[in-house]
């Protein structure tokens, strides 16, 4: 066993949707206990990558390793059984259900007894606490999520994942719709969770400065490929911006 164990590794992952190649050979490693920030252009394949790591999509080719073992993630349930949780960019909320039901979706609290009935009271209370912790105010946790604002909805999705005891957390633009104050509170929460140990995190972000603050390592994706990887400490917003522009110009000229 090497000193720094790997939580997740992908080798040369390709994903095609019909004629569209979303991932064109991506190799990445998520080390045990680190926060890996993924940055990149729109449509670069970041969400597609995350959906493969969480078992929602299956790669067209390439290998996946979870905790060092080669694994074919068959389904979201399968990935979850291996301790992988995800916040999807589209949030995966059921509009007509209440906030607290959404927060515990597919991880409901069950009452004792033979009928395995839902413990709505417990879920309701835990949901309220949890939103309090990340500083998001909602009129009532009984409201259907369709009545919430964009940021409130995102908070529900993030709270769901963050409270799941996962060992690997995949967050796809978790702060995109968050107010500055709420984003700060969530970042604090994530850092606290990380500090407890045992948790490895992939975060897709668009805010370079925020990413460099929170991530241990950053990775840049463009057009289905990883174009840059570096320890967060040894790079800067300017350097990242430069690379993006350079790569983009290179692509454009080669295409013409």
């Amino acid at each position: 066993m090497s000193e720094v164990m790997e939580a997740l590794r992908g080798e040369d992952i390709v994903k095609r949707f019909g004629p569209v190649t979303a991932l064109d050979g991506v190799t990445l490693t998520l080390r045990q206990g680190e926060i890996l920030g993924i940055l990149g252009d729109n449509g670069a394949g970041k969400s597609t990558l995350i959906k493969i790591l969480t078992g929602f999509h299956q790669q067209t080719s390439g290998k996946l390793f979870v905790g060092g073992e080669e694994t074919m993630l068959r389904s979201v349930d399968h990935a979850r059984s291996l301790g992988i949780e995800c916040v999807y960019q589209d949030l995966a909320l059921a509009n007509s259900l209440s906030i607290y039901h959404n927060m515990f979706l597919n991880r409901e609290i069950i009452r004792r007894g033979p009928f395995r009935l839902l413990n709505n009271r417990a879920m309701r209370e835990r949901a309220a606490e949890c939103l309090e912790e990340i500083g998001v105010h909602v009129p009532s946790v009984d409201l259907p999520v369709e009545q919430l604002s964009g940021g409130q909805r995102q908070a529900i999705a993030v709270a769901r994942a963050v409270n799941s005891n996962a060992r690997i957390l995949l967050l796809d633009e978790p702060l995109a719709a968050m107010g500055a104050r709420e984003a700060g509170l969530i970042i604090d929460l994530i850092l606290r969770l990380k500090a407890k140990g045992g948790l490895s995190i992939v975060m897709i972000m668009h805010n370079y400065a925020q990413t460099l603050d929170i991530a241990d390592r950053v990775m840049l994706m463009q057009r289905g490929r990883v174009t840059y990887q570096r320890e967060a400490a040894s790079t800067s917003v300017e350097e990242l911006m430069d690379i993006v522009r350079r790569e983009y110009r290179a692509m454009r000229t080669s295409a013409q």
Partner: protein
Amino acid sequence: MTDVQKAGRRPRRWSNALGRSSEIRIFAVALILCVYFETVNHDFLLTGASLQNLSQFIAPVAIIAFGEIMLMIGGEIDLSAGMVFAFAPFIMHFALEAGLPPWLAILVGVIAAALVGLVNGAVTVYLRIPSFVTTLGTLFFVNGLTLTISRGTPVSPPENSALAPFMGEWGYSEIIWTLAIAAAMHVLLRHTRWGLHTIASGANPLGASEAGIQVRRLKLGNFILAALLAGFTGILEAFRITSIDPQAGGNQIMFLAVAAAVIGGTPLAGGSGTIIGGLIGAAVLGILNDGFTLIGINAFTFNMILGAAILGAMIFNIHVVRLARKGEL
């Protein structure tokens, strides 16, 4: 009280009432209809025979509606329910003829129905045929099968069986079954993971599967449940009318069941639904049908009046009752 506790508890009651409001509204409509018919004809409710007869209008439509509701929440539908309704009692009949005891024969009939549901579900879910088409296919298939095995002729359910009174022969047995099944299905829908996940996969199929919910398994189960309920209803009705008829049920009853579900507040498009609403929806249809027949509307004008009443009741339901409630607040 802190903010947390407030969000966690305070609005619980009104929010629940709001969540249930569609059921309350349609219930008000049912009540008003009862009052109307009782005024016009005093035999409508207050004699045992009338009440019993009314209950028999409601029961079969309601039970089938419960199954359809579970499917409709997920955006699916079972068009074959009416044909399965006619099919199951024949299977029971043949099981009896083969020498099985009545209770086992009933079970065999219900299982046969469930098998149709399994086919509906499997074809829809695994072969990705829209359920409207799948169950249109099984609708025709099961209808043909029933006609073929019955040779087109009605037969009698087991007579003098000790089970018969429980199974529909006794006037109130069917409505008791209906209420019991409604209670069980309500709990299933509102207080178990199965129900919650059914709603979630109807509201956001992609999101539900992203959350790891096994949408396909749920749907398969709900198809089986719907067919099973339809078959069971067919058996109850066979005992009630003391005849097993290859023409029983049919598209008519399926149609009414879906209508009861929609009237009760379950949208065809899925994503939400209510069992209690479906029960009351079936009651509204039953009251209208029974009531107008009881007061003796002529055959030609009957449907005209029924149609107008359905429209009127629903407009009342959505507008007048809501306005009245607003005034109360």
